[in-house]
C-alpha cells in the first residue's frame, strides 16, 4: 500500500471514530448525567434476536433486569418481557455538535430504559457517558496538542532562525522543561489554580496546563529542522536576492517542518488524551458529574468496583481504537521522512 493510501486509511478510521464522539448526543441514548437511582450497577443488557421460545425476531430486543430480592446489585434477566429496540427515536434533548438543538437518537426503547453497556453507581448509562466523555477527553487532547505545537513551532522557529543568545536562552528553558517530571508539574500547576471552577473553566485549565508543559520537545525538533534548512542553497540564494527574515521563514524554512509537525501531532494527541485522563482520574480534571474518560476510569480506584462490576472496565478499552488510529497515522507519516524528499531535491539541483 502506498504511503498516501495508508495515511488516507488511517485518517478515515480516525475520522469515523471522532465523528461518533462528536455526534455523541445522537449515538448515546440518554443524557450522561441523568441518574436512574433504581438501577445502580446494572450489568450490560445483551441484544437478542431469538427469544426464550426460540422465535426469531428481525428487530433486536433486550430483556430487562429485575433486582434479586434482598440484594443491592444482583440482577436477573426477566425473559417474560422482551423490549425491542427502536431506531431513530425521539428522546432526551441535546445539542448536536454543541449548538444545534436536537432530540433524535440512534436507538432507544419506548418504555423502560435500556443499558447496552450497563450503569454506574448512580444508575447513569455507561454508553452515554463513554461517548460524551470522549468529547471532553479528545477535545482536551486535540486542543492541548494544537496549543503545544503552536508554541513549540513558534519558539523553535525563532530559536533556530535567529540563533545566538536568543537560541541559547530558549533552548535552556526548553531543557529545563524537558527535565521536569511532567506529572508532578501538572499537579503543582493544578494545585495553584482555584478549586471551585465550573466544568468549562476546568476544561480549559486542563488544556492550558497540559499544553504549557509539553512545548519543549516539538520546539527542539522544529529548531533542528530550521537550523539545517536555513543553510540550504535555495535559502541562501533567496537571502542573497534580499529576502527578509519573515519571507524566508514563511516561504522556505517553515514548510520544511510540516512533516515533523504532523508526525508530532499524531503522537502528541493520544499522549495528551492520556494526560487529561490522568488528571481526571486523580480528581484534578473536569469535575463530576461531567463525564470524561478519566472520570469514568476513576471508578476503578475502588477495590469493590474492580472485582464486582466488569463493565466498568469498558471505558478503559474504548480508547484503544483511538490510540491505534493515531499511532498508525504517525507511523504512516513517518514512513518517508522529509529528509529523503530534501535529499532528492538537492540532488536534483546538483544535476
Amino acid at each position, binding site marked *: 500500500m502506498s504511503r498516501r493510501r495508508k495515511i488516507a486509511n488511517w485518517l478515515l478510521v480516525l475520522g469515523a471514530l471522532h465523528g461518533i464522539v462528536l455526534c455523541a448526543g445522537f449515538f448515546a441514548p440518554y443524557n450522561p*448525567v441523568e*441518574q436512574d*437511582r433504581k438501577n*445502580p450497577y446494572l450489568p450490560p443488557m445483551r441484544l437478542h434476536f431469538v427469544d426464550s421460545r426460540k422465535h426469531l425476531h428481525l428487530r433486536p430486543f433486550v430483556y430487562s433486569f429485575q433486582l434479586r430480592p434482598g440484594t*443491592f*446489585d444482583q440482577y436477573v434477566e426477566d425473559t417474560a418481557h422482551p423490549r425491542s429496540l427502536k431506531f431513530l427515536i425521539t428522546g432526551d*434533548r441535546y*445539542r448536536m455538535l454543541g449548538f444545534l*438543538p436536537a432530540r433524535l437518537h440512534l436507538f432507544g426503547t419506548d418504555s423502560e430504559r435500556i443499558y447496552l453497556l450497563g450503569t454506574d*453507581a*448512580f*444508575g447513569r448509562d455507561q454508553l452515554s457517558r463513554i461517548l460524551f466523555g470522549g468529547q471532553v477527553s479528545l477535545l482536551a487532547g486535540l486542543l492541548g496538542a494544537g496549543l503545544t505545537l503552536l508554541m513549540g513551532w513558534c519558539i523553535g522557529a525563532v530559536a533556530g532562525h535567529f540563533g545566538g543568545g536568543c537560541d541559547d536562552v530558549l533552548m535552556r528553558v526548553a531543557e529545563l522543561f524537558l527535565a521536569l517530571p511532567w506529572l508532578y508539574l501538572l499537579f503543582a500547576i493544578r494545585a495553584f489554580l482555584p*478549586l*471551585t*471552577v*465550573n466544568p468549562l473553566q476546568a476544561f480549559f485549565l486542563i488544556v492550558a496546563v497540559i499544553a504549557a508543559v509539553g512545548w519543549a520537545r516539538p520546539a527542539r525538533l522544529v529548531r533542528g529542522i530550521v537550523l539545517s534548512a536555513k543553510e540550504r542553497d535555495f535559502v541562501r540564494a533567496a537571502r542573497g536576492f534580499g529576502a527578509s527574515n519573515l519571507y524566508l521563514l514563511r516561504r522556505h524554512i517553515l514548510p520544511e517542518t510540516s512533516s515533523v509537525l504532523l508526525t508530532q501531532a499524531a503522537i502528541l494527541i493520544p499522549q495528551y488524551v492520556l494526560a487529561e485522563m490522568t488528571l481526571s482520574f486523580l*480528581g484534578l480534571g473536569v*469535575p*463530576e*458529574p461531567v463525564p470524561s474518560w478519566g472520570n469514568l476510569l476513576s471508578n476503578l480506584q*475502588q*477495590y*469493590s*468496583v474492580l*472485582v*464486582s462490576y466488569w463493565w466498568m472496565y469498558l471505558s478503559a478499552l474504548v480508547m484503544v481504537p483511538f490510540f491505534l488510529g493515531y499511532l498508525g497515522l504517525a507511523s504512516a507519516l513517518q514512513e518517508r521522512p522529509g529528509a529523503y524528499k530534501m535529499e532528492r531535491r538537492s540532488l536534483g539541483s546538483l544535476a
Partner: protein
Amino acid sequence: MRNYPAIVARCRILFRLFLGFSALFCHPAFAHAQQNNSNEELLTLPGEVGHCGGRLVVSLRGEPKTLNPLIAADARSREVIGVMQADLVHINRATQLIEPALAKSWKISPDGLTYTLVLRKGLKFSDGQPMDADDVLFSFHVYLDENTHAPQRDLLIVGGKPIVVRKVDAQTVVFQMAKPYGAGERLFDGLAILPRHLLEQPFQEGKLAQIGSLSAAANQWAGLGPFRLREYVAGQRLVLERNPYYWKSDSTGNRLPYLDELVFLFVPNADAQVLKFQSGETDLISQLGAENFSVLSRRQDGYTVTDAGPGLEYNFLFFNLNDLGEKAPADMQRKQKWFREVKFRQAVSAAADREAIVRLVYQGRGAAIWGLVTPGNKRWGDTNLPHPARSLDRARALLKEAGFSWTTGPNGESTLQDSGGKPVEFSILTSSSNADRAKMAAILQDDLQQLGMRVQVVPLEFRSLLDRVTQSKEYDACVMGIASYDADPNSDINVWLSSGGTHLWNPSQTHPATPWEAEIDHLIEDQMSARTFDQRKKLYDRAQEILAEYQSLIFLASPDILAGAKNSVGNFHPAVLEPYVLWNVEQLYLKNGRENAAQ
C-alpha cells in the same frame, strides 16, 4: 471526621518482663491460685469461656502517631491506646450502659455533686507496680494541668470549674463537682489512669508530651489495659503482648485476656484492609464500607461478615453561616444571604433524597436520618421528630416563599435565581478520601439541580477541608460526618453548643449568633446538669426539634457498622460504639488457640 469533645485516650508503653509467663498465668490451675489470692479483686466477666493463647492480627489504616493518651488525637492512636489502658468506670459497648472497671463500686451524693469511688484491691500496672488512689489523683492532676494541654481537660471542667479530686484512703477517691453532671459516671469512661511511678518526674520537668512515642523504650510507660507493648516496626506493625497483671477474669476464673499477642498491621487504606483480610493475613476487620462488605459477603471463605446495625455516625450537609464581616467578597455575602434564609435550608432538606443515599451509598446498609441521634442510639432518639418524605413540590414552595424564582434556559432547563436575579450557584466540599461522602454529594448535586440550583462538588484532602471549614471559612457548603463516641448526648456537646469547636456551621462563637442557637445552648447546658433521665431526655428532645426546624445541619444518613472475623475467632461481637470490634479484646480468643500458639 470524628468528634471527641475530650478526645478519649488510653495508652502506655511497657517493658518486656515476664515474656512467656503469659501462657502460664492463663492456665486454669494458676487461675485458681490467683483467685485465692485475697489481695486481688478480679472483675469476672460473663460470656463464653475461651481458650488461652494465640495471636490475633488486625489492620490499622496507617500508623498510630503516639501511645500517649495525653496527646493522642487520631483515631488509630486511640484504637491502640484503647487496648493498653483502662478507666475507672467503663461504658459497655454492647449494652451502652456503664459498668465497673478499675473502680469496683461508687456512690453519688444526693445533691449529685460528690462521687465516691472505691478501687479494686490488688491492681497492678503492666510492669508489676501496684496501682492505688495516688495514681488516680496523679492522673487527674495531669489531665487538669493547663500546661499539659490534655484534650481530656475540657471534659473535667463541670459548671465552669475543674473537678476537685481527693484521696480518702488507698482504695477510695472522692470527686467533687461544682454542678451536677447529667451523664454521671460516664464521665470516667476513657480517662486512662496513668502510672505515677513512671510519669511523675517527666511531669515535673514538663516533658510528658515527649513520652510515649512508638519507638521509645517500652519501660517508659505502663498501663492497666489487657495488652502491653512488645515490639514496634516502623511502617509495618505494632506487636502487643498479654498484660499478665490484667484485672479481669472469665466465669471459670481464667485471668484475661485470652490472647498472647495482638498485632496491628499498618496498611494504607480501606481497600488494602479488605485485601489483607480476604487473603487471611488479618483475623478481624472493622469499619467496612458497604461495597467492600458485599464483596466479602459474596464468598465467605473461612470468615463471616456481620452487620451490627446502625451506628452512631451521622452524615450531614451544612452551609457556611459564619459571620464573615464586611470584608467578605460581595459574591460570598450574596450566597450567605441565601444560606441564612431558613426556608432555603428547609427546601434543600426537603429535596435531599435520603432513601437514595441509603440505597446507593450504603447499599441499603444504613438508615436515613433527620436528626443528630441515629437509630443506633438506643435511648436518646426523639420519637416526635418529623421524618418528612422527599418532596420537590414542598421545596419549590419554600423557595418561592423565600423570594426565589425560576427562569427557563434555551435547553428547557430551569435555573433558580434569588430576588436580585442572580442564579443560585454554590459548591459543596467533600473529603477526597471518603468515597461515601463524595457519592452523597453527587446525589445532592443532582437533587438540587432539579430545584434549578447549580451545584459543584469539590473533593478536598481532609486536612485542607477542615482548615477551610474551621479556620479560613472559605467555603459555601460541606458534606461531613461525625461519629459520636458514646450514646450519651454529652458526647456531641461541641456540636450543639454555639461555643463548640465542632458547631460546624459557625464554630467557636463568643455569643450565640441567633436566638435559636441561644435556646439550644440553654437546653443543652440544662440537660447537662439535670438529674434524672426523663428530665434530660425532655430537654434534649426539644434541642433536637429546634435543630430539625432550623436545619443548620441537614442530616442525611447513618451507615451500619459492618465488620468481619475469621470463623476461628471466638467471642466476636461487633458493637456500634467505637472501638467496634476490639471493645471486648480481652475476651476474644482463637478457637484453635493452642495450635496457633505452638506455631
